[in-house]
């Protein structure tokens, strides 16, 4: 048994516990509270004067797969992010340096239908223990014209072209499901995966930014029936009502929306706040390595500078909301009895830029200590 004592525990879902104790057994949290009895055989982790914070969750990264797409076709539902997963990627270390313990990692966004993403912890004893959910979603991308790295046929260039590719793939899957049921066709791995999407066993995670894209996606959703998340969503606040009516979550980012350019003239940090106020579940993302995952909490802090979101709202966007969107909230996202003992010890409140991540724990094991790794001078 382990006991984290003396710190201010930010549980996320159960408020803050000043001088709280977190009891851990077999990698799980068994109790959280003030003045809990610490068993004499427990290994004590002293967090006096520190903040104990639930492991952060980044709901959209390319760690281990570095954002690559299989660009042999705009429709590749049969490819799996896990088959590209390189556990040596230093992005996992950068995640720990930033207090991030669970991520979604996903194929890139060159394809209309890009393959399956997975949810994985940023450290752990084995791949088997680290993977929380696989597949965790079907990556799709509504990405037009010059904003698409792979061009030329059969890649679509217009919004209606993208819709056409997506609708065709889903219609073919409907046909496949009927004919497969009758035993008329051989198994098709890609269509099996899309069938999971149409049966709502797997959400589509759709790279999309603007109202024209989001309205089209909702139209296709009405036609075929599936669950989806908005990935990036820098102008999603312009259709916040429609998204809220459908209960569609937004994985907002990378960054707080301060990096502006001509393509998304309405982009801004207020976007995340408007979505939140409309009742939409918002989680933040870094899209690592596009933006460094180490900055995940800093992006959250910047939302506080520019909006009237509260620290509590933002912490949820960095933890439990991402866990719920990833479908792993039974395991991670808060400091609660029964969940995995994934947490970090910060020198100060985690939304302060100058607060340091001092120690990181996953399933009760210390997996990181002492900040950033620096190479030695020559």
């Amino acid at each position: 048994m382990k006991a984290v004592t003396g710190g201010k525990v930010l549980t996320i879902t159960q408020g803050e516990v000043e001088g709280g104790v977190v009891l851990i057994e077999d990698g799980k949290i068994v109790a959280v509270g003030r003045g809990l009895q610490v068993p004499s055989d427990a290994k004590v982790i002293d967090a006096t004067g520190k903040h104990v914070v639930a492991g952060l969750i980044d709901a959209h990264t390319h760690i281990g797969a570095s954002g690559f797409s299989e660009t042999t076709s705009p429709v590749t539902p049969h490819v799996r992010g896990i088959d590209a997963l390189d556990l040596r990627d230093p992005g996992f270390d950068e995640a720990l340096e930033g207090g991030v313990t669970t991520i979604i990692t996903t194929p890139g966004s060159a394809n209309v239908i890009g393959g399956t993403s997975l949810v994985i912890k940023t450290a752990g004893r084995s791949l088997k223990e680290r993977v929380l959910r696989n597949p965790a979603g079907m990556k799709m991308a509504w990405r037009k014209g010059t904003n698409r790295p792979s061009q030329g046929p059969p890649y679509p260039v217009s919004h209606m072209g993208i819709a056409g590719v997506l609708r065709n793939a889903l219609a073919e899957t409907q046909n496949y499901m009927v004919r497969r049921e009758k035993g008329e066709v051989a198994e098709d791995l890609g269509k099996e995966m899309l069938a999971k999407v149409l049966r709502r066993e797997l959400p589509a995670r759709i790279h999309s930014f603007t109202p024209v894209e989001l309205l089209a996606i909702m139209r296709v959703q009405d036609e075929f029936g599936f669950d989806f998340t908005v990935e990036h969503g820098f102008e999603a606040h312009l259709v916040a009502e429609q998204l809220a009516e459908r209960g569609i979550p937004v994985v907002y980012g990378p960054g707080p929306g301060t990096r502006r350019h001509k393509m998304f003239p309405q982009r801004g940090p207020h976007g995340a706040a408007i979505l939140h106020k409309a009742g939409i579940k918002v989680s933040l993302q870094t899209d690592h390595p596009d933006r460094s995952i180490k900055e995940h909490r800093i992006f959250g802090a910047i939302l506080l500078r520019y909006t009237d979101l509260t620290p509590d709202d933002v912490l949820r966007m960095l933890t439990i909301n991402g866990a719920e969107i990833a479908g792993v909230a039974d395991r991670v996202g808060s400091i609660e009895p029964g969940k995995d003992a994934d947490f970090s010890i910060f020198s100060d409140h985690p939304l302060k830029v100058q607060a340091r991540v001092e120690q990181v724990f996953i399933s009760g094991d210390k997996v990181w200590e002492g900040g950033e790794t620096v190479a030695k001078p020559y």
Partner: protein
Amino acid sequence: MLAVVNARIHTCGPGRTIDGGTVLVQNGKIAAVGTGVGIPDQAETIDARGMVMTPGFVDAHTHMGMSWQELAGEADTNESTGVVNAHLRAIDSVDPKDIAFGDAVEAGATTVMIHPGKLMVWRQTISPIAGQSVVMKTHGKMARREILREPAGMKMAFGDAVAEFLTSRNIGPNSRMGIVGLVRGVLHEAQQYRDKGRGNGSGDRDLKLEALSLVLSRQIPAHVHVHRADDILTVLRLGQEFGIDLVLEHATEGHLVVEALAESGVPCVVGPITRARSSRAMRELQNLSQKTPGILAAAGVKVALMTDHPTEPIQFLPIIAGEAVREGMVPEEALKAITINAAEIMGVADRVGSIEVGKDADLVVHDGDPLEAMTRIRLVVADGQVVVDSLRQGKENA
């Protein structure tokens, strides 16, 4: 006449920090700083009790105005038709409509250096001699935004991105020594051009060599994009060979050759330190450390920090300085890295970078630690004009 009173003033100048101080502004300039400054009757007074004042921030490395349309397929940062682009001027690509200028003012970044030669999103390429940089103010009507220094430097580059640039155009060279050989050849040609007194009226005028002559005669420094430690040493060697003034831009592995840097006296504009070191597209970042600014400053290197806007948005400048503090940089040094050090490196410290009598009245008032994200900027004064104000009663939060 304007008086901002009762602030805790980080002057970033010899006066260091003044508690309960007053800054008196007249004709766009700072007329007096300190405690016990007499306030003339006609002065408009702003009470900044409980607030912290800094100079307007200075970002020593941006591409503002040059690439805000990049994702729409347009970008004006890097000319690819020639290898040596010494004759090109960043100012001719700066679109004053870029909304980032307004963002900069709101974030208290009142002066920026704008460099040509930026890596593109899907093309990690840059020309070895990218063109001439400009220093300008960020506030004011777009056609009247003040240029403080032009040309302010010659943007050059070494490393992987240059090799890729040359390879992608099938023109070589593509090895590190080959690229350095190319640049030495060009600088040598410029030496001869200068020594033979060619120029306008000689019938032999060459705009590229003319611009490089400015570097050779030390009228402007070379601002050199360089990440890797071996490339840093190469640049220092090249600078010595030609007797030119250098500024290292990015200096990602500077902490690995900190002694050589300190000995050289060459200043470094470090960053952006918020980038991922695990980027496969940018292998030169694999040793990126947020500790680098602190390590270099502690060794006596003059350090400025950058956003590299739009790589990081200009608004992040003070937050980036806060990250440097978290990783060991002395807070006073981190603040200087986005004010006076930057101004000195850019050659405009006579005008901006500190709160001193005679300098431009560029002032920022914060409601807390200027290097924390949650702190809000309550007042920005640029050249003596109030351009952001949520401090006085009845004013909307900017």
